């Protein structure tokens, strides 16, 4: 779906590039794009939309080279739902969705028919003739989703789609995102600060910070790694030789007062007891660590960037 190699994007008259040599390959699915403000998420979306030309490196989106002459044609295959309220306040949902459909290349009559269909799909069938200025936040978000879907894109970018929604509204929006992928086969890039949203719908994750990829991979792989996280408590603190030998069990993430946070090489906590027996140490407690995604995100943001700033 998307592939980059050493991608660098630079804004005019700024010495520091906004994206620094990203390498990334994403398969069709729902990709969660996480990162703090100013991390380069918007710049990445602009580059993917063909609005910014890479200053170095190369990449393709849906098989189309980035920064090439086909950027406009590529945008006809992509839907974009912005974070902010990009709604034409003096028009009804029906009028503006038809308008966006026409801008994407639909004939006027086809765009009008399509506006009805897509507004029904997002649950705005009955309200579609009302001016959007009278819509609730949830309805406005759904109009934005409808305009992104009106031309049946192969890939959609959703920028904070659950912003300002109550829990029920969030659930409905995320259900729609899942439906878009499952029923329409549309690839989804979901940029969000709400990690629970990403956790719920995404099957791949990219963590960006300061224009670099801090971590990237499949959610299944991430969950698997999380399942291997344990905390070991020993009766007496381990000596230096035992601490070194502890690496046999897996990576030691943190050690404090006889407590050791480990990411086990194998997802089998009983290996820790066997290791303690072999080392003559008294293991009194093995606690699985149920890290949440936000802890993973924070850790990734504070870890040094892997060489090449790339993901898988």
């Amino acid at each position, binding site marked *: 779906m998307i592939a980059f190699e050493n991608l660098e994007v630079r804004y005019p008259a700024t010495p520091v590039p906004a994206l620094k040599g990203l390498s990334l390959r994403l398969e069709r699915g729902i990709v969660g794009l996480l990162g703090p403000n100013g991390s380069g998420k918007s710049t990445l979306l602009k580059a993917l939309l063909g*609005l910014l030309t890479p200053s170095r490196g190369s990449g393709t989106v849906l098989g189309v080279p980035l920064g090439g002459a086909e950027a406009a044609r590529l*945008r006809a295959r992509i839907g974009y739902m912005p974070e902010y309220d*990009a709604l034409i306040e003096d028009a009804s949902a029906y009028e503006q969705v038809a308008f966006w459909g026409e801008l*994407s290349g639909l*004939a006027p009559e086809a765009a009008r028919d399509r506006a009805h*269909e897509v507004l029904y799909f997002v649950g705005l*069938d009955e309200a579609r003739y009302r001016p959007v200025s009278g819509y609730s936040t949830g309805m406005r978000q*759904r109009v934005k989703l409808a*305009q992104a879907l009106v031309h049946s894109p192969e890939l959609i970018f959703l920028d904070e789609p659950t912003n300002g929604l109550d829990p029920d509204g969030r659930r409905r929006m995320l259900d729609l995102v899942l439906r878009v992928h499952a029923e329409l086969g549309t690839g989804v890039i979901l940029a969000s600060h709400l990690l629970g949203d990403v956790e719920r719908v995404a099957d791949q994750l990219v963590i960006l910070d300061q224009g670099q990829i801090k971590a990237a991979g499949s959610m299944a792989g991430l969950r698997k790694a999380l399942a291997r996280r344990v905390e070991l408590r020993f009766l007496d603190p381990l000596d230096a030789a035992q601490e070194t030998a502890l690496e046999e069990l897996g990576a030691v993430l943190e050690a404090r007062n006889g407590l050791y946070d480990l990411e086990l090489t194998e997802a089998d906590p009983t290996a820790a007891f066997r290791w303690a027996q072999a080392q003559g140490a008294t293991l009194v407690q093995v606690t699985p660590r149920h890290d949440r995604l936000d802890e993973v995100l924070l850790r990734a943001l504070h870890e040094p960037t892997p060489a090449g700033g790339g993901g898988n």
Partner: protein
Amino acid sequence: MPIYAPTLPPAPDLRHGHPPAVVLMRFDLTRLWRQKIGRFFGFAFLAMLLWKIARIYVDHLLNTNQAFKPMQDFAKTILTQGAAFQADLLNPASYLLWFLVALVGGGLVARDTLYRVRPLMYAHPVAPRDYLLAKLGFASALPFVILLPFALLPWLMSLLLAGLNGPVWATAPLRLLPAMALSSVLMGSLAVGASSMASTPRAGIGWVLGLVLGAGTLASMIHHLTGFRAIDALNPVLLAEAWPQLLVGVDHPLVGWVPALVGSAAHIGLWTWIAAKRTKPSEAVI
């Protein structure tokens, strides 16, 4: 509780749509319709048009009916004749047009800025030149279309009533249409450039009126302080007024050919450049 469709069928073929600039212009026309400013301006322009047509008919009566013969010489002293009459066909509608252009054009770009839809347009297959072309096209086409009956209806009526000897020259449209096109592009570019500097439609209206009146005042002040007449070409109202006169062969008292050409080119170039700079994608915040 929203009701959701069981599924969404695929969209029809995307290759049958209209060019983006046409879609944008059509949408702006729909917005104009909603502004409901047509009643006042429609009445005003219609009244002016009726006066022009009535003049053709009165002229015809004076020339053909012996009963009005004594009035003919008197009428000639108070009513414009010949080339000046041709140029005057577009006035005073062209003055009122500035207000209409300010009301409509002031919001053309500013409304998109206010609603933040321009970045979303660029996320579609819309190039900045499509956007600029649509806005300039709409803002220029509007005054041109409104002026069209003022050039064509009196001409048609004159031809029908008096043939080639009527008060309107048979070749008048050939001279008036280019003048209208120049004036309309001048109005359109100024409105779009001013609107691109505003963040709300109301501010856009203020910008257009401020620039039109401000440029005129500045030009007048410099003219009277320095005696440099050509500076009057800074005044866009005078330029719009001068073009029909110059093209039908009447000397404008303030603006000659060269200042009119330079002034119009400077205005059109400057405001188009500003609009292009202010609407490029880098201004967009996604």
